[in-house]
């Protein structure tokens, strides 16, 4: 059985992880700059990526985080990873 997450659910998951792992207090929208909102340096970015992979049970492409600047980019990357994992297991 495959569960499909919509963008709002992925966004909510990202916010959950950011609050839990990066002590983020606020709201995230697609247009939000990740670096500014989450004060991402290389270590916090790696923490975010690893914890998002744990949360969504998805393997994001190695190095994909370098092309991500907004929350929307991250939502797209996670959706793409979930779709890829789903097609690989079908």
């Amino acid at each position: 059985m495959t569960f499909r997450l919509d963008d709002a659910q992925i966004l909510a998951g990202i916010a959950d992880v950011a609050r839990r792992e990066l002590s983020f207090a606020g709201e995230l929208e697609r247009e939000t700059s990740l670096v500014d909102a989450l004060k991402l340096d290389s270590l916090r970015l790696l923490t975010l990526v690893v914890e998002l992979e744990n949360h969504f049970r998805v393997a994001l492409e190695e190095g994909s985080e370098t092309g991500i600047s907004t929350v929307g980019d991250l939502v797209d990357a996670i959706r793409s990873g979930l779709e890829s994992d789903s097609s690989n297991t079908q």
Partner: protein
Amino acid sequence: MKVSALGSALPPHHYDQERLIQALRAAWATRHYNIDRLEQLHRNVLVGGRHLALPIEEYEELTTWGKANDAWIRVAQDVGESAVRRALDRAGIGVDEVDAMIFVTVTGVATPSIEARLMNRMGLPSRMKRMPIFGLGCVAGTAGIARAADYLRGHPRDVVVLLSVELCSLTLQRNDLSVPNLIASGLFGDGAAAAVLVGSERSATGPRIVASRSVFYPDSERVMGWDISERGFKIVLSADVPEVVKRHLRRDVDAFLGDEGLTRRDIAAWISHPGGSRVLEAMQEALELDATALEPSWRTLWEVGNLSSTSVLMVLESIMTGQTPSPGSYGLMVAMGPGFCSELVLLRW
């Protein structure tokens, strides 16, 4: 004052990085989904292998801080004694001639401290002054040389031994699967190094200590350090270290060398703490060094990992036992550590 000789000692249990990754995989899998990413993280630190204080299968038994620290006390004496004896042999100085010993570590606690226990094991003279220093972290190898030189200014006929023992693997909290701890578990190794320093009224070979400089960076306490939990040391590591290097190191090195009438171009040997690949790259960029200038540090990092305060002494040992700089040339010891701070020592061969 001169650094007469150095000696190092590594625990006999060596594992290449792939073997260590395999050993850690099971623990990672209890919490993390994408194990391939964590494996890659451990390969990216540019460490080929590490020596561990214990055989790898014995770490399972270290279920409390007390057990880990007991192992630390036992192994610290073994590798500490070996390093001191090797350094004294190279210096041609007897155990009974040691007037003072500075012991530095940040990976275990002991009272009586390790150098006191070595007095019993090695028959060091009962008059020997003991100076155990805990907490300087990675900067303690360079700081220890500087403090030994400070002491020798007032005691020009004395022999000082600086001993650094760091058994980083015994601080590893296997249930801490946070990213900083994952990085630490791929980078840090175990070992000991000792330096024999003599005052200006004793004849000795080896580089002269010309000057030293301490620089403290205010309000940077969370750049690096330990938090203490009921399970022991829990690493504090921020991504700021390469930034701090870029922001401060060139200015501080230039100011220090300028006060001695020198510039970076006068330095023939760069003796840098190999904190990690990104730190070494930042140092190379900040100090505008050519690709080979930090080669001894890169090599040490690859061969044994980051040994905290021990590492910079091993780098100096490799230079002093290899192709030593020509007479009259300068070397600069550079290290940064918790505080956050840096220590610089100018040597002249």
